[in-house]
């Protein structure tokens, strides 16, 4: 039995308790060292765990309650290479965010650090858990920490409203999840994922299990900000402090998707088979295109980044929805690159905000001239998020393409790359306007101006710029790390092996060790290279149109404005900022998703 999995949760939670409890007793530098050390240790242990999990699933039964004759008695952590890799990335992003907030959020200090560590522990626990009810507890724990972090600056109305919308929508998702757990427990009498899967595989499905699956998966999709459950995301990310946004957008939103994948492949794969995936694929496609469009229509930098996060999560969900190893491996690699790049871009947004006290793209026009390092980080991050061949998210996106083509759905590629291009166009446009001073000073399609509230900060700028650069450079490099693609595919195959997972967890039977994997850069299909190049060109073109719309011939620009203005207004008004609307969308989304599954799986 390995002791590393519980340590990944225990270290950050104990350090959080120590930080909060010893608040006034220890000097500040000691606290800072403690916090960063706890987070860095967790990250290092995740890498050790990843190394252990390469050959076999690492299982830890709490209190030594091992299963008897294939019946799970206790509660377990079951960690494969995918979950361990997840923990490692979560650790890296949280550590960078903590370093960033060392000077960025001095007024917040202690409790802020404690909440970040709680979120870290909860996310690691979520990624490793092999028990359905524990998934719910970790989900709520990271939720509570995240709501408090979002509303940290309670002296202003924006953060309070964002946190309220975030908390209410996500707790409703959590409660749907709890009802789903009760239904599944009623049917199977088990809470261990492998055990539930084993008992459902005997063909005792039906309406009840479909309802349970809808509630459980929709609970995760609320956390994962998938359209139409995504409305809270932009409100929360717009107002949270930059390092919090980096953690929320970089890793915490994506973790909902891990939950979807984990539940599908441990529990619902055997009784329901492939039809579950088509609904997920469509949700992903709609999310990618809609959120890409919304990103392009933003002038608030952090809202723009929020929609960029939602767009890429849609692409990842589409990868998972393909239900094959290549698609899942693609989602995994995209998660790695996306987490780091998004964190880096939020860091740059935070630097710009603290330099000028402004966050509106149009207000900031030309203010960033001469800030070469932040400008470099912003543009590099934007290009990485488009997925220009062999940069940033490209490799993951390419694998998702490959999966879609193999399954005879080549039209998926066009929609996914369109989402990427729209998001990239928004980011490039903002970068060019802020750091190069290009473009018009007004744009009527971008909605109303942001009410700025200047924050005077005494920050150690090199530290902020340094963390941003580290995050972006790591994220850019993900596509060209030799051997990573092959290992991601192997991890995905392990993750998808329902019976292998059950045999390992319930009977302690180890899986066959992997044959040695090659250490070379994974090559993608020519189709992906072409699509990625086209998406990059489209992104640059759209960015230029966004910047210089007024210089187009008058006939074109007025015609375009006349046709575009009504749908744009509709999109803006759908994202109303009123929590009642968001809850209605959650209810409608759950009902529609459930109806689709009921029709497909009957």
């Amino acid at each position: 039995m390995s002791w590393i999995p519980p340590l990944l949760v225990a270290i950050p939670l104990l350090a959080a308790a120590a930080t909060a409890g010893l608040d006034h007793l220890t000097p500040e530098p000691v606290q800072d060292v403690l916090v960063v050390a706890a987070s860095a240790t967790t990250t290092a242990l995740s890498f050790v765990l990843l190394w252990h999990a390469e050959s076999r699933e690492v299982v830890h039964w709490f209190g030594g309650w091992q299963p008897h004759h294939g019946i799970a008695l206790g509660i377990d952590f079951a960690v494969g290479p995918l979950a361990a890799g997840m923990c490692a990335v979560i650790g890296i992003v949280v550590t960078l965010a903590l370093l960033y907030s060392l000077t960025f959020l001095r007024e917040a200090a202690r409790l802020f650090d404690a909440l970040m560590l709680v979120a870290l522990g909860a996310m690691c626990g979520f990624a490793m858990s092999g028990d359905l009810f524990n998934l719910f507890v970790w989900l709520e724990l990271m939720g509570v920490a995240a709501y408090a972090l979002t509303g940290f600056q309670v002296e202003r109305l924006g953060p309070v409203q964002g946190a309220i919308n975030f908390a209410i929508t996500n707790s409703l998702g959590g409660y749907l999840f709890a009802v789903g757990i009760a239904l599944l427990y009623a049917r199977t009498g088990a809470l261990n994922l492998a055990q539930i899967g084993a008992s459902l595989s005997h063909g005792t499905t039906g309406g009840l299990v479909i309802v349970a699956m809808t509630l459980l998966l929709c609970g995760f999709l609320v956390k994962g900000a998938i359209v139409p459950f995504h409305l809270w995301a932009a409100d929360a990310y717009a107002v949270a402090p930059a390092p919090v946004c980096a953690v929320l957008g970089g890793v915490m939103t994506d973790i909902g998707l891990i939950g979807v994948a984990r539940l599908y492949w441990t529990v619902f794969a055997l009784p329901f088979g492939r039809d579950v995936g088509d609904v997920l694929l469509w949700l992903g496609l709609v999310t990618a295109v809609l959120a890409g469009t919304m990103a392009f229509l933003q002038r608030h930098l952090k809202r723009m980044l929020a929609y960029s996060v939602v767009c890429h999560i849609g692409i990842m969900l589409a990868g998972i929805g393909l239900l094959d190893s290549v698609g899942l491996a693609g989602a995994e690699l995209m998660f790695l690159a996306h987490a780091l790049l998004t964190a880096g871009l939020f860091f740059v947004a935070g630097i710009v905000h603290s330099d000028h006290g402004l966050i509106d793209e149009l207000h900031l026009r030309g203010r960033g001239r001469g800030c070469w390092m932040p400008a470099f980080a912003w543009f590099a991050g934007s290009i990485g998020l488009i997925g220009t061949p062999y940069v940033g998210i490209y490799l993951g996106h390419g694998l998702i393409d490959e999966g879609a083509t193999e399954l005879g759905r080549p039209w998926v590629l066009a929609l996914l790359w369109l989402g990427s291009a729209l998001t990239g166009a928004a980011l490039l446009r903002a970068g060019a306007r802020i750091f190069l001073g290009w473009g018009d000073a007004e744009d009527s399609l971008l909605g109303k101006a942001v009410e700025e509230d200047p924050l005077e900060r005494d920050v150690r700028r090199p530290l902020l710029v340094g963390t941003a650069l580290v995050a972006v450079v790591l994220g850019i490099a993900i596509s060209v790390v030799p051997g990573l693609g092959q290992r991601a595919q192997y991890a995905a195959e392990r993750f998808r092996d329902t019976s292998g997972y059950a045999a390992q967890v319930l009977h302690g039977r180890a899986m066959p060790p992997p044959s040695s994997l090659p250490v070379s850069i994974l090559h993608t299909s020519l189709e992906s290279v072409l699509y990625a190049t086209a998406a990059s060109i489209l992104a640059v073109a759209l960015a230029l149109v966004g910047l210089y719309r007024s210089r187009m011939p008058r006939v074109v620009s007025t015609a375009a404005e006349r046709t575009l203005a009504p749908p744009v207004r509709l999109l803006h008004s759908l994202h109303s900022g009123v929590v009642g609307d968001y809850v209605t969308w959650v209810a409608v989304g759950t009902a529609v998703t459930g109806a689709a599954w009921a029709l497909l799986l009957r």
Partner: protein
Amino acid sequence: MSYLPYAVAAWICLVGIAGVATSKNLIHLAVCLTVTQSSSYVLLLSVGYVMHGVAPIFLGTKLGTPAVDPVVQALALTDIVVSVAVIGLILALALDAHRLSGTVDPDSLADISG
């Protein structure tokens, strides 16, 4: 076992969601959220209840005596603890919203949108 408890749980859940969706007051909204949450308690209780079952304390009972499921009470308890933390936080944020804007109506609070 009758279907009534399950119907009651579904009703409570839906009424709670309707309340949250139409609420004009954040405190009222938090209460509606608790109502939604309590549907899962009712559901868990009806799942675990055994007709004519005894409490699951096995000291001194004959082997084979029917007993109610002890797991669901642990789940319901954890559920309650989790939701208390969330509701507490939402109420605290509602207080802050009132302090800053003088209202607890989520519609007039909509400061950020689009």
